[in-house]
């Protein structure tokens, strides 16, 4: 049961990692790429870490419980640090004058 849950969470995490990596390649400009790079990662790494935290409770002991607790601390850290890092990168781009890609601009070029 626990194994099934772990597999489900990890595979879902993999799927989102895969989708956002494809997004990272296919999106047209710096800003929209940050959407794929910065945030699909948050959900997918949270899912995978949750899966691992549950897996380490498979054979319950105090040591394994501490391992799960440490993984949950990592999750909290990612939850706080990931949006902050994304914001820092995109703010640096905005400050140095990178122009966002828009649909109107593309039509004007044609």
């Amino acid at each position, binding site marked *: 049961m626990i194994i099934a849950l772990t597999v489900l969470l990890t595979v879902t995490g993999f*799927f*989102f990692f895969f*989708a*956002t990596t*494809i*997004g990272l390649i*296919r*999106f*047209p*400009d710096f*800003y*929209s790429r*940050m*959407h*794929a790079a*910065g*945030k*699909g990662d*948050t*959900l997918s790494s949270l899912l995978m870490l949750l899966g691992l935290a549950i897996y380490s409770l498979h054979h319950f002991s*105090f*040591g394994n419980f*501490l391992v799960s*607790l*440490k993984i949950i*601390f990592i999750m909290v850290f990612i*939850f*706080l640090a*990931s*949006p*902050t890092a*994304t*914001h820092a990168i*995109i*703010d640096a781009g*905005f400050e140095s004058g990178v122009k*966002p*890609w*828009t*649909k109107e601009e*593309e039509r004007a070029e044609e």
Partner: protein
Amino acid sequence: MHFIYMFLIMFGFWIVLSGKFDAFHITLGVISCLIVSFLSLDLFFHETKKKGRIAEVVRFLSYIPWLVKEIVLATIHVAFIALRPNVKDNIDPKVIMFKTRLKKDLSKVTFANSITLTPGTITIKVSDDEFYVHALTKKTAEGLPGEMEERVGKVFKEFGE
């Protein structure tokens, strides 16, 4: 008093991270926690005595499930945009600006980070009460500021009792 709180938090972390309970490791832990809490005491506990802190934490924790739900829905949205053919037809990026009604720094930070966490929107800049947000599609742009601001405001009691 703050020193004792700080020491207890630090020591809790030590216990969790070391997982060993013999005299040697506990003594090491006590010594290093004392030194660290002495050195970094003035970095924590900026505000002196404030009532309702615990209630605020509880309200914040009850905000997180809603945020996670939003994150999941929005990630699925962006993932399908990325996987569908003709990416450029499906997205319509815009930088939008709006004014927020939130006043406190902490609630602005929470709001900005929540915007960035939900895929499809990234906070570019916050100056005073103006938020600059890059939105990936029309659908994600329409959702701002909206319900999220309302909920963050409730967590930090921004709009009166």
